[in-house]
Structure formats: structure tokens, C-alpha cells
């Protein structure tokens, strides 16, 4: 196990965005954080990355609590809908990522090829389309060195072909030992790429495990139901 999350809660005034969220993340797996819009996925990622304060709860690794300041040693979070260094070229942004974040220069060419960014290297990030920007954010995340990479909505803005190619690329990185924790609201996309799932709804974890494990949990609740797909499992558990 790479790290575990215990009893994480976060409120925005009267609204409970996260309530006693607990789960664990295994090394080298692709873990999907599945939930509808407003389930608290982004809030959970921001709390884990330490860019949003949580009200209670802990992140633990090897039996020890990992404080906010130490989180960058184990995980890196790529937010959704951001446009960093908008006036700078993609080429420079990748160099900066490797330099500033002590990233992995040996992966630069591979990541550029995997995400089809070769033709965009000279263009300013602010001039890119939504899908292109998403691929840039993925590249930034993949070039970092932390063992776990948290990506908020990795397929948002990508077309079907790009989604499949990006999913294959992410799996390749996971196969080499990188742990990926992906927040996905499209359940079909999640089913294609993830090894295990954390189901989140209304800020609460409704289930955690592989598809067969989740299906078993759903069947325990509703013996008459059919739970062949992740969609059916999700609907049954949330």
C-alpha cells in the first residue's frame, strides 16, 4: 500500500463536501475516483494535495501520518480547468516542469509523443484548445517524480480517439510502477482504464475495490439485481 486516507472531512459552511472519507491507494495501481458532478472529487484531491485545508482526517503512509507539507514527497496533483503559464510556450513549460519540480527529463520525449504534443511545442499554452490544454496538463503531471499522480478529470475535453490513446499512455506509466489516482465522472472511461475504484457520492465513500468486489457489495445489498457493469454497480451503491 502506498498510502491510506482516514476519516477525511471538509465543509464549506453548511455544506458537507466530504464526510469521513477513508480508502487506501496501492502502489502501481490505477485507482479511479468515480462520482457524479458535485460528489466532492476535486475537493478530495485538493485536500489530499494540501492545496485546500481539510477539517479533519489524515493521510498515512507506512503507519505514519503525512502532513500537508510532506505530501509533495508522495503525490502530485494535476487540477482540472487550470491554464498555468498561459503566455509561455509548451516547450518551455515542459522544461520548467522538469527543472522546477525536479521532474524526469528522460520521459520528456516519450510523454510528448504519447500525448501527441509535438506540433504544439512552440505554441503558447494560453492559445491551446480545451483538449490540447488537458493533454498539456497530463504531460506536466507525467513528468513529475512523485510516486503517486492525482489527475482531476484526465479525459475531460478529449475526443474518443484521444481518450483511448491517453488511457493507453497512462496505463503504460502505471505498468512501470507509477501509481495513478484518476478522478473520472464518465463511468465508461473509468471502467476502461482503472484497476480499482473508489465510489464517491455526496461527499461519502459508497464503495471501494475492483469491479468484482464492488459487484459483490452491490449484490449483498440487492440479491435480485444484475451487476455486470461498473455503471450498474455505481447506481446500486450510490
Amino acid at each position: 500500500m502506498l498510502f491510506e486516507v482516514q476519516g477525511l472531512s471538509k465543509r464549506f459552511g453548511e455544506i458537507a463536501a466530504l464526510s469521513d472519507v477513508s480508502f487506501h491507494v496501492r502502489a502501481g495501481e490505477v485507482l479511479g475516483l468515480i462520482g457524479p458532478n458535485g460528489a466532492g472529487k476535486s475537493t478530495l484531491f485538493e485536500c489530499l494535495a494540501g492545496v485546500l485545508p481539510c477539517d479533519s482526517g489524515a493521510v498515512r503512509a507506512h503507519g505514519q501520518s503525512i502532513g500537508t507539507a510532506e505530501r509533495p514527497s508522495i503525490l502530485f496533483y494535476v487540477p482540472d480547468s487550470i491554464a498555468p503559464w498561459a503566455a509561455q510556450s509548451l516547450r518551455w513549460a515542459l522544461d520548467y516542469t522538469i527543472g522546477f519540480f525536479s521532474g524526469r527529463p528522460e520521459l520528456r520525449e516519450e510523454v510528448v509523443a504519447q500525448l501527441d504534443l509535438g506540433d504544439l511545442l512552440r505554441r503558447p499554452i494560453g492559445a491551446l484548445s480545451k483538449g490540447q490544454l488537458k493533454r498539456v496538463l497530463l504531460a506536466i503531471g507525467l513528468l513529475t517524480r512523485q510516486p503517486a499522480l492525482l489527475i482531476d478529470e484526465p479525459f475531460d475535453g478529449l475526443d474518443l480517439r484521444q481518450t483511448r490513446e491517453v488511457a493507453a499512455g497512462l496505463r503504460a506509466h502505471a505498468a512501470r510502477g507509477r501509481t495513478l489516482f484518476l478522478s473520472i465522472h464518465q463511468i465508461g472511461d473509468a471502467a476502461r482504464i482503472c484497476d480499482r475504484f473508489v465510489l464517491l457520492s455526496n461527499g461519502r465513500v459508497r464503495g471501494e475495490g475492483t469491479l468484482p468486489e464492488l459487484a459483490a457489495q452491490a449484490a449483498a445489498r440487492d440479491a435480485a439485481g444484475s451487476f455486470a457493469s461498473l455503471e450498474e454497480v455505481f447506481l446500486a451503491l450510490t
Partner: protein
Amino acid sequence: MRRARSPAWKRCFLRSPKPAFLWLLEKEWRELVVSRAWWVLLLAMGPLVGVSFMSAVRTYAEVSGLNGTAAGVGEALSPLIGVWAPTFSACELAAVFLLPFVAIRLVGGDRQNGTLKLELQQGMSAFGLIAAKTMVVLAGWLVAMLPPLSAILLWRGYGGSVYAPELATLISGHVLNAGLTIALGAAMASVAEHPSTAAILTLSVTVGTWILDFVGAIQGGWWEHAAGYTPAALVAEFQHGLVRLDSILIAIVLIVTGLGLAAVWMRLGTPSHRRLYESMGVAALSASAIFGCTLVRGSWDTSESRSNSFPVADERALGQIHEPLRVEVHLAPEDPRRLDLEHRALSKLRRILPNLHVTYVSATSIGLFEQTSAGYGEIWYRLGNRKAMSRATTEEGVLEVIYSLAGINPPKEDEAAVYRGRPLAVEPRGAGAVFFGFWPGVVVIGAILVRRRFQ
């Protein structure tokens, strides 16, 4: 095919890891040069300095006897007061109305576009992040100071004299003032969610310091004391070539406080209530440090005219006084005689006599209706058990009373040491072309080239 190998020095250089802070500095610099706010600042500096410089040189020329006017004498013909203070006042304007937007753009922009969420994960301290931004904005400010610096070259070209220490003091004052503005802008950009809110807050604080100046001038007392440390008062001292250690230390404390607050509020992952407590801690530390700084003595008069000092012989004579000298001034804060007394005598006396205690006594702020009151306008001097009264507010009048009280023979005036001024009766030739043509042209071309490079 065999690959061409790059030279050994280049391979070595490429392999050497650049520290994260240098990467950050490079990024901030690149962000600065693409920000419109900075280019607008640069563009505005040319005409602002041009108007100030040309007007100052013309006035200076008239006082020097151009077109048949009577030649001036003494301090009126000090280039520091006659040319450089008004020319560099453009920097003061720009620091108040333009520079905050450059700082806010650089600090608040990262928060707006989400960059901060990424960069906070690098592990670098928030103070490191804000320090890099400050250094870059300060470098940007130094570039913006090129027009007034080019005015120095023009002045030399006209045959004008330049006294380096006083110019260095003036420039340092404006750099320090810019530091205060940057720190304030950074703090507000970090505290506020939106850059426009930060801009309003920054300007509000600036207006607040102006109100403090105004209240200090009317109320006197502690208000006047506090007003002596506002950015405007700081710049005014440097404009006269006066370097006061307490003012510099307080400015540095305020800059560090602003950057500290910016760093506290930049840490998005820290709960708001904790950031609030930390801010209160920073403010308390800052207040203590400022109080400590007000106790620090030490000042230097770098002006060629020694406009902040008594003549050397008088300073030597005053140095023989070791007893505490108490001065009780019965003049209202807005009475022009009080300003005369303060600027012509007491401010100079404070620099020489560490045991000087000045008390102002008045029933009103303007003193208009106190004129007929008994004792109004009197200035009482007490040295040991001797005391004397005078109504003189001139340097000579004040010194005469003090010498008489101390039983010291007034030194003879050293004619050779008297500053006779640096008259120069010339028109500001070529200044219009430099500040209204060349500089804006360079800025516009620079902006276009940078824009092309980045897009």
C-alpha cells in the same frame, strides 16, 4: 552516421542542475515581460519623467539667470532640490498608481489561473515563492527607472554638475519606496480572492497613509510622529539627501511584513483561521520591530549643499554640549513658523544632539486664534538649570540662543565652506525627443518583439 558531439563545456553546463529558485526567477521574469501592466508602466515613465525634467530644468535655468532673470543663490540652485527631486517625483507617482498593478498581476495572476496550485506542490516555502516575485518586480522597477537615469546623462550633457552621493540617496529612496509598494501589493493580492479587490485594497492603504500625513500635519503629537514614517515622508527625506537609519529600518520591516503576510495567505492548504492568527503574529512582531527601530539613532546628510546639517564649525561647537537640551515650542501644528523652525533648525539639531527633547504646546491646530494668547509663539530653551526664550525660527536665531545658554562662543562663519549653488542656465535640449519619442518608441518596439516571441 556519427552524431556531432557538443563541446565539453556545453555538455557540462547542460548537465549542471539549475536550482529550483532560479527556475522560478526565470519563470517570474518571463511572466513579467508578457504582462501589459509592466509595459504600460514603462511607457508612462517616459512622458512622466520628461514633463518633470524639462519643467525642472527650465525653472532651474530661470533661477540661474536665463533670459535676464536675476541669478539665484544657495540652496535654490542645488541640482538635488531643483532638478532631481522633481524629476524623480515621476517615480513616486508611478510607484503609487502603476507599480501596484504590476505586483498584483504577478502575484494574483498565479492564483487566478491555477498555477499556484501546481507550484505550491514543489515544496518550496511560500516565502521563497513570494521572494522570487518580489525580486523580479523590483528588477522590473529598475528598468522602469531608466528614463530618470537617462535624465542624468542629459543633465551632464548640458554641463550640469552631478553629486553622486545625493543622487544615489535619491535613487535608493525610490527603490525602497517601490519595495514598500510591491510588498503592499503582494500582501493584498494574496489576501484578496480577485486582483481588482487587491488593487482597491492597495490604493486604500496608500490613501490611508495620505490621510495619516494630513492628520499628522493638523494634530501633531503621535500622529505627526507616525506620519514621519509614511512612504511619502520617506521619499521626502531621500529627496533632500537625508539618510535616516530609523526610516530605512522601518521601511525594511514594513517590506518584510508585507511579504510575510503575502506568504501566509499564499498557503492555500492552511486553514483560514490559522492564517489569520499567523497574520496577527506577523503584525505584532512587525509592530514591536517598528517600535524598536524608532529608538535607533543615526543619520547621514548626503546632500552637496548640506541642507540637512548645520555648518561644520557649528556642529563641532554643538558637540561640546552634553547636557540634555529641552525645547518647548508654543506654536500650533499648522503655523508656518513651526514648520520653519522644524525644518531649518530642530531637524538639524536632532541629528547633532542626542539629548534633545522637543515639546510642542498649542491649544488649537491652526493657531490663528491663539496669536493674542500670552506666550504663543514663544520658544523656551532649557539647558541644565539655565533657560532662555526666543521667538526666532531661523537657523541662526536658534543657534544663537543655544550658544548663549551653553556659554559657547559662536564659531566664525567659514566662507569657503558655504555652498554657493550650481547654477546652470540652459534649455532642456533634446529631452523632448528622448522622453516623448525615443523612450516610448523603444518600449512599443520592445513590447511588440516580446509579444511576437511569446505568441
